[in-house]
């Protein structure tokens, strides 16, 4: 059963892979001087009360004012908390808004848009119009709002249930600034566009056997400066893509992040079941995260 592999042996390709915005970044060792491959031990039951956070974003071009796009967007985020194996909503929120390049939209149109009960955000951009660039700017704005919504929910949840784990789909870069120190926050990164390691360290990370993790290392992050992270192989990759079943776990830079790395890895291994299929990313996507996505999709109605 194949997952969506990037460079699985034998796959015939025709297109040039898309460009990577930030292929390299720096890292510093935390747990060991060199990156080692460490057996996590057998999968173990995760603690009860783990919650999972994810967000979604959708946008459409609602109309054109001249050559200026009016983008209408829906962003949402939800936290599903697991008790006794059952997931139920702990928190959720959504926003709908419009994004326009304000400085290029005539005032009467802005006034007209402002009369409607929906926020109008500025897409920014240059004075010189370029429809495709304008759309990209609008999309980035939407993405920013989604990230902000996720931050809001994460902060709200951790404030309410600070002692319980919150697993976030993706990096915790944006979250560490708004969460308190010592938060049981965990990010699960499925894409590996940016490589923080190189040489033997990188090879050790990307060739991890199933059920192994790397040493914990620190990577440069946003306002909090650093994020502790390690690679974990959820599924064997021998016959697949090099990145098959490989995730990168992120924790706030606390001491216990290193101490609990293997324990956290063991219960992440337990999360392989149920499988997140039929999602093509089933080898790296946790089933509860997929459930959050499904939940948000169901809530979004026509936006999905």
């Amino acid at each position, binding site marked *: 059963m194949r997952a969506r592999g990037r460079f699985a042996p034998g796959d015939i390709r025709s297109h040039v892979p898309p460009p990577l915005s930030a292929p390299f970044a720096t890292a510093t060792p935390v747990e060991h001087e060199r990156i080692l491959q460490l057996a996590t031990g057998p999968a173990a039951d995760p603690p009860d009360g783990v919650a999972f956070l994810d967000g979604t974003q959708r946008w459409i071009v609602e109309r054109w004012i001249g050559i200026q796009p009016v983008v209408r967007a829906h962003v949402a985020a939800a936290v599903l908390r*697991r008790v006794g194996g059952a997931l139920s909503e702990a928190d959720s929120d959504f926003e709908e808004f419009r994004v326009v390049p304000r400085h290029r939209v005539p005032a009467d149109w802005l006034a007209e848009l402002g009369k409607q009960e929906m926020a109008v955000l500025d897409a920014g951009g240059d004075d010189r119009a370029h429809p495709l660039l304008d759309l990209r700017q609008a999309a980035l704005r939407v993405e920013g709002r989604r990230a902000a919504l996720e931050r809001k929910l994460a902060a709200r949840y951790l404030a309410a249930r600070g002692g319980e784990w919150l697993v976030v789909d993706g990096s915790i870069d944006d979250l560490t600034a708004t969460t308190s120190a010592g938060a049981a926050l965990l990010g699960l990164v499925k894409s590996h566009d940016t490589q923080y390691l190189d040489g033997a360290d990188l090879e050790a990370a990307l060739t991890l056997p199933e059920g192994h993790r790397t040493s914990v290392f620190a990577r440069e992050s946003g306002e909090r400066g650093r994020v502790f992270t390690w690679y974990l192989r959820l599924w064997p990759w021998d016959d697949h893509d090099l990145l098959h079943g490989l995730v990168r776990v992120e924790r706030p830079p606390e001491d216990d992040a290193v101490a609990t790395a293997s324990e956290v890895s063991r219960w992440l291994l337990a*999360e392989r*079941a149920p499988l997140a*299929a*039929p999602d093509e990313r089933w080898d790296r996507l946790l089933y509860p995260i997929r*459930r959050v996505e499904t939940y948000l999709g169901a809530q979004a109605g026509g936006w999905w």
Partner: protein
Amino acid sequence: MIRLDDRRPIGRVVATETLPAGPHQFHFWTATETPLGIGAIVRVDAASGRVVYAVVVDGRAYSDLPTPLHDVVAAEGDPAGATGPTRRAEIRLWTAAVLRHEPEEPVQPVPIAEVHLATEGDVEVALRMDGYARAEPSRAIPVGAYRAGGLRAPVSLDADFLLGPESAHLNISGVSGLATKTSAVLFFLASIFQRFPRTKGSVAAVCFNVKGPDLCFLDRPAELRAEDRELYQLLGVEAKPFEGVRYHAPFKADGVNLNTLRSHPDLVGDVQPLVWGLREVLDFHEVLLNRDDIDAKADAFLDFLADRVVEKDFRDEWGNAHRVRSFTELERLFRAIFDGLEAQGRGDIWRTHHIATIRKVRNRLLNISTRCKGLVTDDGSVSDLPFGSFADRSIHVIDVAGMDQLGQDLVFTRVVSKLREYLERRELGVDHVVVFVDELNKYAPGDGPDTYVRKMLLDISERGRYLGLVLFAAQQFRSQVHRRVVGNAGTAVFGRMDMDELATPGYHVLSPATRIKLATLPKGELMVRHPHFTQPVFVRFPRPAVLTGPEGIAQFPPASDVPFDDAVVRQLAALDRRVAPARIKDLISGRREEDVRRALLATKRVRPEDVTGFFTSSLGPAVQRERVERPAGPKPLKHVEDPYAP
């Protein structure tokens, strides 16, 4: 678990392009923990005010697991590892068949709205019972309780559609021993007797007990469980044994011991002997004769006998006067014909009938009194059902369980024919008669020869409702009963069914889940189809408040057969405990058995205050034996000297 005391919805209608909601069927989902099940009645309230009532006919559950292989992969091939820390999202998706729309017009697809469990009032409206249960007088005949999610609501049939004239007849199917067919019918009869409005007329029942002691103790109370008593209370039916039960059974071959398991000394007095003579049999000769026997010539001769000879003064060509009232007298006639023809050498024809035909008819008819001995007597005495004086709310149980098939056919045919005849003349004594017959597939099979019994059952099922003659029939395999007989039953009831039977085409209108439920129905639960119910409904009925056959046998063990004089004493003593056995034995000592039987029959029929006196007078004075001196014999012949004399 969703609590039922709050009025929160239990589900929501879902409709997709591939799974749309129609006017007659729709789908809805519920929480995984739900009191809902197959057969539950639900209510959909649309914002527009439209209300839809429906019954759940199918249910499915599935998770978001795309293929079984994904589970194998997640568990890495180890079934013990198949469960992860998160339970998969599951759905309970139900299919419901619409019972009723309000308003009825225009007929529209079921709206996408909340689904509620039906309340007691909803059940009444959903099954259209409001039309007849709330009528004045109420025409509701309770048949059981609808049960779902802790709710119990009475389910009733419309008397006009159960006993006529709108439609009539009830057919019940199910495997023997598990479907509780007989119990169900007994409860229905109790319900009819108590709830059938008197303004609609009088009603009685005739039940054929075709096996064991099933119907032999309908007047004896049974111990009921608390659950049954609650059901009786809910249904508004009093838990009590039947009143006015009359039992009828033929004699055994000895002509004096009754052929019934209700022969305990305390009970046998209620059993009326069923005894018929030549006339009663001859009218239904078609039942008794093989199909091969009934050619045109034999038929013509039988008609001749029935029209010109039996119970008429008849004089043959040889000067003999006949009045044929019994098989003995019939045999005398036949002997006179054969002797006359032989003596006169006139050939083989008597009054256009060939002697071979006459011999064949003679053999068949006289053989009947042998084959049905105990039912058919040779002495002309008759003890029959009280046609013409049937009492309202009475039950006549005819015990034919001990008879062979031929005798059962004869009894069934004649009794039902007489009922029809009296009902046509409005002289039966009641306006409606329910005839209960078990093993219908034996009497009205879907295939096989077209027997007289089957023709009669077809006639009843098609025309009986106009007369008030209502057939309650039971069988194990509905598919093996003639289609027109079951098809004309307005109400169809099903108990536990056999899977093979459910695989026959007649059941394909039911959903697979409904068929599975039918195959696993517990005792006391039934599926009911009725003209007012647009979908079948499952109900639970209480056990009848009478002893079952085995219970009755345990409490009232059948008496063993006794000698002739003891049997007579026992039957008279059952009528009147003051009867002195010694005196009765003295009375009948030396009397012809047929005379004693005739007197006994008359006494049981009349049930006089002074049993001994009536019996004595019925017996008549004893004919003193006259001593006849042996004649002296012929005088010796005159001696002749003849050396060659013998």
